[in-house]
């Protein structure tokens, strides 16, 4: 069900900037649908970003991160051709990993 995320990673003068837009409903579990039934919580809990095989960022999220989460961070290092991979896991055990090649 999970749609691919959009990742853009650019490197200049030794610093790589990563922007990621994930596709996820991020339901808090507190919202009610039109019939009044509570919508069960469904949100990303863990995000791990890797540069080649080195972890460059770990994030733990609660339900208060917006729908279709956006994330931007920078790490030192990275050369054109390197891979940046971002993976997330949600509270239903669903997960997705996408990667881009640095430009």
């Amino acid at each position, binding site marked *: 069900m999970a749609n691919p995320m959009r990742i853009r990673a650019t490197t200049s003068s030794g610093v790589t900037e990563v922007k990621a837009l994930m596709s996820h409903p991020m339901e808090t579990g507190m919202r009610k649908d039109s019939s009044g039934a509570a919508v069960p919580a469904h949100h990303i809990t863990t995000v791990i970003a890797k540069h080649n095989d080195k972890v460059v960022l770990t994030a733990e999220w*609660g339900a208060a991160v917006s729908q279709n989460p956006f994330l931007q*961070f920078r790490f030192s290092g990275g050369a054109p051709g390197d891979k940046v991979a971002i993976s997330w896991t949600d509270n239903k055990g669903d997960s997705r990993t996408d990667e881009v090649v640095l430009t």
Partner: protein
Amino acid sequence: MNMQRRSFLTITGSALAMAATALLLPVRAFAQWVRPQAAFEAKGLDATFAAMGGTPEASADITFMAPEIAENGAVVPVNVTSKIPGTTEISILVEMNPNPLAAIFVFPEGTEAAVQTRVKVSQTCRLHAVVRANGKLYGTSRETKVTLGGCGG
């Protein structure tokens, strides 16, 4: 007989102590990051701070950008940069949300202690950025006015 029992206790005891140290060390070294579930489930700002390990000390070395007025509470962009040396973690808290802790970002060596994301803000309140550096907590906050709440309905 008694001697054997004594030595058995000593050996088992020290083995247990070693195992406990081995379990504790990775957490301290952040080799094995454990999600602080209690902090995510805490209600109210003080309870969340307590679950995170104490009330943060106010610091001017944290740049925290959040809009003064957010038209849509469901998408509030926040930008946190920490200039505190040894920053390992940045957390974002929304004071009046049902569970204030929104996100924790963990920075390994080589990653800049800066992050930008978007959070939900249920109503007009203060947003807090908390930085963990060298085992201590530092924080700063900003007030965001919300025109339309982030809890949809």
